[in-house]
C-alpha cells in the first residue's frame, strides 16, 4: 500500500475511504460533508438490476465494483504511446489537461486565453483556487441521489476538468482534456464542469481511453455543462476505452436563454457502457444539438439514454444518434423528449438510425415522449437496417472488395454526423477509428 502511494485499498467503498480521499486533496469542509452525505445516499440506494426500468436492457451483474480500488495514483513516467497519439491527433489547442488514473498530470492554458479570465484546471485545483465558482456549480445539475452511481460518484469523485469562460470571451482553438486509465482493478470518478459565461464561445474535446488490461476497470464520470445567456458551446466526448473498461456515466447540460450547445458523443471502446446524455433547455431561444456516433463490435454493450427536456418556450433540440453494431455487439438507444407545460413554440427533433453488420449483433431503439404543451413541433423516428446487398453489389461491380464495400457503406452511414461537426481533426480521427473497427 505504501509503495504505490495508495490511500485506499481495493474493495474499500467505505466512509473511511471517502474521508481519506477528501483529506488527500485538503478539501474544504463543505466538500467533505457533501461527500459524506453522498456516501450515505450511496449506502441507502440499492444496486440497479434489470428489473429497474432504466436498466432493463443492461445487465451489470458482471461488474465487480467492490473488487476495484476507488482511487489510484498516476503512474510515474512519460505518457503512454496510445494517449500521446490521441492527444497529438487532435492538433492545435488553447489548453490541455491530462489525467492518468485518478490524478491530473498535466495542465496548460494559452497565456492570452488565461489573461482574459478563462480558467482551465483539474477539479481539485479549481476547488482550491476558485472555491466559490466550483461550489456554485458542483453537482447542481446532477444530484447525488439521482442514482446509486451518481451517489457513488459524489462520494468518491477525483479528477476531472473545471472550465470557466467569462462573459463575452471567445476561445478560438479547442480546449482538450484526456482521461486515461493506466491500471486494471481501478475505478475512476472524474467530475467535469464547464461554465460558459454570457455570450461566450468555446469548443471542448473530452477524450477517454485506457490501456487494455485483463481485469476490469470502471469509470463513473459526470459532466455538467452550464451555458449562460447566449453562450455557444461545442462539446465533443470521444470515448475509446480498452475492452476491460465498464462505464456508467452522465453528461447533463443546462441552457439559459438563447444559449446554443452542439454536442457529439462518440462511443467506440469499453466492454459495457451506459451513458445518460441530457440537455435541459431552461431559457427561451435555447438550442441544443445532440449528436451521437456509436460503433460496437465484439461483445460490446452500449446503452445510451438521452433526454431532451424543454422547460421554456421557443426552445429547440435536435438529436441524431447513429449506432452501428458488428459481431455480437448490442446497442440500446432510449430517447426521451419531455416538453413542460408552457414550453410552447418548441421544436424537438429526434432521430435514431441503427446499422446492423452481423447476424449476431443487436440494436434496440426506444423513443419516448412526454409532451405537456400543445403548440409545438415534435418529430421522432428510428430505423434499424442491415447491410443492403444491392448496395454492396453495386460497389463491388466497380471493383471494390466486399470488405471495402462494407467499409464504404458504414462510413456513408456515419457521414451525416461528420458533416455536422465542423472539426476536421475529429472527423479524421473518426474515419480512422471506423476503419480500424471494420478490420478488427
Amino acid at each position: 500500500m505504501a509503495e504505490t502511494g495508495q490511500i485506499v485499498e481495493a474493495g474499500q467503498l467505505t466512509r473511511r475511504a471517502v474521508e481519506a480521499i477528501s483529506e488527500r486533496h485538503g478539501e474544504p469542509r463543505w466538500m467533505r460533508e457533501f461527500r459524506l452525505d453522498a456516501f450515505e445516499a450511496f449506502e441507502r440506494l440499492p444496486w440497479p438490476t434489470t428489473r429497474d426500468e432504466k436498466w432493463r436492457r443492461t445487465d451489470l451483474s458482471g461488474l465487480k465494483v467492490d473488487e476495484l480500488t476507488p482511487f489510484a495514483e498516476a503512474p510515474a513516467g512519460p505518457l503512454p504511446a496510445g494517449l500521446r497519439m490521441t492527444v497529438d491527433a487532435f492538433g492545435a489547442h488553447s489548453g490541455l489537461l491530462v489525467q492518468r488514473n485518478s490524478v491530473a498530470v498535466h495542465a496548460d492554458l494559452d497565456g492570452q486565453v488565461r489573461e482574459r479570465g478563462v480558467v482551465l484546471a483539474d477539479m481539485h485545483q479549481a476547488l482550491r483556487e476558485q472555491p466559490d465558482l466550483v461550489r456554485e456549480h458542483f453537482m447542481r445539475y446532477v444530484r447525488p441521489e439521482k442514482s446509486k452511481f451518481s451517489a457513488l460518484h459524489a462520494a468518491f469523485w477525483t479528477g476531472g476538468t473545471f472550465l470557466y469562460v467569462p462573459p463575452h470571451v471567445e476561445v478560438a482553438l479547442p480546449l482538450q482534456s484526456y482521461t486515461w486509465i493506466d491500471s486494471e482493478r481501478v475505478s475512476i470518478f472524474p467530475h467535469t464542469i464547464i461554465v460558459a459565461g454570457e455570450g461566450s464561445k468555446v469548443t471542448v474535446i473530452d477524450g477517454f481511453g485506457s490501456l487494455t488490461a485483463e481485469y476490469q476497470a470502471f469509470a463513473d464520470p459526470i459532466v455538467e455543462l452550464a451555458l449562460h445567456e447566449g453562450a455557444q458551446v461545442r462539446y465533443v466526448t470521444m470515448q475509446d476505452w480498452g475492452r476491460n473498461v465498464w462505464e456508467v456515466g452522465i453528461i447533463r447540460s443546462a441552457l439559459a436563454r438563447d444559449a446554443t450547445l452542439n454536442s457529439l458523443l462518440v462511443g467506440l471502446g469499453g466492454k459495457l457502457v451506459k451513458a445518460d446524455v441530457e440537455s435541459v433547455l431552461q431559457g427561451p431561444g435555447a438550442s441544443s444539438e445532440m449528436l451521437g456516433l456509436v460503433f460496437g463490435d465484439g461483445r460490446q454493450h452500449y446503452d445510451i439514454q438521452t433526454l431532451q427536456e424543454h422547460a421554456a418556450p421557443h426552445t429547440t433540440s435536435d438529436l441524431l444518434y447513429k449506432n452501428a453494431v458488428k459481431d455480437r455487439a448490442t446497442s440500446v438507444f432510449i430517447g426521451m423528449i419531455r416538453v413542460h407545460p408552457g414550453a410552447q413554440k418548441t421544436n424537438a427533433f429526434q432521430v435514431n438510425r441503427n446499422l446492423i453488420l452481423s447476424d449476431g449483433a443487436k440494436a434496440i431503439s426506444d423513443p419516448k415522449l412526454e409532451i405537456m404543451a400543445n403548440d409545438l413541433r415534435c418529430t421522432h423516428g428510428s430505423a434499424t437496417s442491415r447491410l443492403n446487398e444491392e448496395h454492396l453489389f453495386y460497389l463491388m461491380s466497380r471493383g471494390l472488395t466486399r470488405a471495402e464495400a462494407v467499409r464504404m457503406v458504414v462510413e456513408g452511414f456515419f457521414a451525416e454526423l461528420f458533416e455536422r461537426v465542423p472539426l476536421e481533426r475529429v472527423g479524421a480521427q473518426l474515419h480512422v477509428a471506423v476503419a480500424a473497427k471494420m478490420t478488427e
Partner: protein
Amino acid sequence: MADLEIKDLTVQVEDKVILKGANLTLNKGEIHALMGPNGSGKSTLANVLMGNPFYQVVKGGILYKGEDLLAMAPDARARKGLFIAFQYPVSIPGVTMSSFLRTAVSARRGYEKELIPVGEFQKLLKQKLAELPIIEPTIVGRYVNEGFSGGEKKRAEILQMAMLEPEIAIMDETDSGLDIDSVKIVAEGITRMYERANGNMGILVITHYSRILHYIKPSNVHVMFDGRIVVSGGPELAEELEAAGYEGIRSQFEVIAAEVQHEGAVKRAGKVFWVEH
C-alpha cells in the same frame, strides 16, 4: 477464343426462370446491340454477367477471356475489365462519388494497399469530365446517385465507365432517360473511348431505340425474346424493329416454338432462329 462467350445461359430468380438458354459472343474491338421487348431478360443478362447474387444460374456458363466468369466474385470481374452501366443504378447514402471513384479506379488499376495518389486521380477525373461535357463536375462531390435525376444517374454511370476504362462494357439502356442532345453527347463520348481503346474494348449496347445506334455503330444486333436471343443480324435489324415492332418476331417465334416443342429440333423461319443446345 472469344473475349466474352455466353453459352446456353439459364437463369432464375426464386422460382421463375428468366433466361432460358441465352447465347451470345462478343469480342474486344466489336460493338453489338441487344434489343428486345420489356421483360425479355436483357437486364437479367447484364446483372448475371456482373455477378448479381440475386440471380441464380441454373444451367450454362460464361467464359471471359477464357476464364469461368461465374466462378469470380463481382469485384474480381470488374478488376478484370468487365463493366456494366446499370439500367437502374442504386444510390448509396453518405458515400461521395469522388471517394467511390477513387477507390474503384484504384481497384481497377491494381493498387492493393493504398489508393491511387490524389493528384493523379484528380488529373484523370478532370480529363474524363472534359471529354464528357454533359456531366456536371459538381456531381463528384455528391453522394453516389443520391437524389440524382434519371438522366444524371445515366451520366454518372458513363463517368464511371470512362474512369474505369473497361475491356468489355455492357450499357443497359443508358439512352433511356437522357434527353435527345445528351444521347448524342454520351454516344460521342463512348465512341471516342472505344476508338481510343484501339481494339481493346468491346461494347454491348442494350437499347429500345435505334437513335443511339446511329452514333455508336454496332456491327451486330441481337434480339432477345422470352429469355433467349432469337434473332441476330446487322445494323439494319434495329431500324426494321423500330419500324415494325416486335409483333413480327413474336408471331414467327411462336411458330418456331411450337415446332421445336413438337419436333425437338432446330428450325428456321424468316429471320428468327433458335438453337437448342
